[in-house]
């Protein structure tokens, strides 16, 4: 088992290597230290924090709900966080206010619970019910956000970018707060990983193994909502990171959450640093929102997963 843990540690130099690569990718002429360290570095750090938060949340949801099609984007957690952020924007609460993070977290947490309770027609929600409920919640919240954008045009351009997902001039204060929140949730997950393993057998079996399903679900919804809201506060809704990353890492490190949670955080960081670098450089000088890049990978991946599950089911 120690050998396995050492393998997870190898993700750290991989993340650093990707960051260095990203730092020196892009227009070279005129890219002095100001651009490299003043603009690119904070942006790379933001990509790492957001990727870590989303990768971690995806791994948590997939284990907790025994549902391989889960991630914060599909379950509506991200849309809930967005709605919280837009509500702040509407009521004049700045992103530097602690209330901003509180509202974003509340939105994420409420939307997750709403999806879960809508899906729970029987005692335990099925995979397809969860995905459908997530779509319903996301669509409704996104419609509210769109409505707001059309009504308050003065905010609209920045909000549209926020909605598509991307890294704008990353504010150091936001970066620091989000980084701490993601780190805190990953630590919480690393402490409670055993429960995700037994929840992967289903809630009923987990209950027979001595876990209290209501308490554990609440704890993990809170941890995943915290990490997701920290990510959304920085970069808006970046989809599918939380879906793809845990599936790939399960192939490398195995199914147990002992390694999967931490490795999904690191793998998410790695993935999003690379995706954002591609978004920044592929069509330079124009910039593609990173959410567009992840969706281009993510949607086909989702379909592949869906087909594979149908074959097994």
């Amino acid at each position, binding site marked *: 088992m120690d050998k396995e843990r050492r393998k997870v540690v190898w993700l750290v130099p991989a993340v650093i290597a990707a960051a260095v690569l990203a730092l020196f990718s892009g227009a070279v002429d005129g890219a002095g230290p100001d651009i490299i360290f003043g603009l690119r570095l904070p942006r790379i750090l933001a990509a790492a924090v957001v990727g870590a938060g989303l990768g971690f949340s995806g791994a948590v949801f997939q*284990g907790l709900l*025994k*549902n*391989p099609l889960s991630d914060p984007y599909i379950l509506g957690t991200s849309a809930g966080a967005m709605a919280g952020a837009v509500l702040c924007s509407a009521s004049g609460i700045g992103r530097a206010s602690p209330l901003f993070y509180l509202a974003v977290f509340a939105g994420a947490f409420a939307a997750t619970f709403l999806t879960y309770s809508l899906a729970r027609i029987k005692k335990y929600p099925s995979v397809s019910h969860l995905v459908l409920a997530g779509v319903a919640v996301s669509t409704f919240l996104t419609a509210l956000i769109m409505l707001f954008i059309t009504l308050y045009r003065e905010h609209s351009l920045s909000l549209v970018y926020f909605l598509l997902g991307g890294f704008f001039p990353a504010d150091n204060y936001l970066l620091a707060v989000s980084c701490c929140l993601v780190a805190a949730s990953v630590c919480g997950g690393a*402490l*409670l990983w*055993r*429960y995700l*393993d*037994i929840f*992967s*057998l*289903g809630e*009923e*079996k987990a*209950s*027979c*193994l*001595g*876990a*209290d399903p209501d308490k554990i679900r609440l704890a993990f919804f809170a941890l995943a909502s915290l990490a997701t809201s920290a990510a959304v506060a920085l970069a808006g809704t970046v989809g599918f990171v939380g879906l793809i990353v845990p599936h790939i890492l*399960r192939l490398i490190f*195995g*199914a*147990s959450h*002992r390694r999967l949670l931490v490795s999904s955080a690191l793998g998410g960081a790695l993935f999003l640093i690379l995706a954002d670098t591609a978004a920044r450089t592929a069509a330079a000088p124009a910039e593609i929102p990173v959410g567009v890049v992840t969706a281009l990978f993510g949607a086909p991946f989702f379909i592949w997963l869906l087909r594979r*599950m149908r074959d*097994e*089911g």
Partner: protein
Amino acid sequence: MALIRAKNLKFSYNGVPAVAGVDFELLEKDFLAVIGPNGSGKSTLLRLISGVLEPSEGLVELLGRDVRSYPKTELARLVAYVPSEFYLPYDFSVFEIIMMGRSPYVAWWRNYSAADAARVGEVLSEVGIDKLRDRGINSLSSGERQLAFIAQALAQDPKVLLLDEPTSHLDINYKLQVFDLLSRLAGAGGLGVAVVSHDLALMAAYAGKSLVLKKGGGLFYGPAKEGLSGANIAAAYGISDPASVTRLLKIL
């Protein structure tokens, strides 16, 4: 003292009675066969005993105390439940699956200990699946997979072992392995084992006691010889010719 005592146990799903007034006991070293037609409430009965479901009426006592009065971790140290075959989306190793059985012994903030790993090692040998230790659970055959989940239940060090159709998808070799193991656990191990199964001939060969359910209520509780007789089975399943059942049981 009886490990499990069910008193006038009733349960209904949305007003439709699934278990209607069942009485029985499970003692140490008992191998109890629970049989009955589809929809007679066998699986529901196991869920009621394991505390997953709460009875609408009546009572399940575990060691003389209402099963609902136990904290979940304490209950998981006394009663282990192996559900019928279920879908598992992630490919845990057999070792990891069995280790999960140690959950009720580990405080929530701690990791599994070396002693837990040692216990998993013992259980692997006890069940005879040492070789499968590092295999992925979804790469196993149905029989191997079932043995792994029984091993997980054993890692809980329970006093009561409940199994829901443990042999339904297995070939005859694994069916015998599973029943041999279960009767060993009941006999030498001193556990109370209750098995729901449609393998009537195997149940008749291995079980000491039987609980025969019929739609709408218990039909018979007592020695397996009587419970699994042709006449009794025919009555429970609504078969018009008891002699044909007796003949079939003899052939198998």
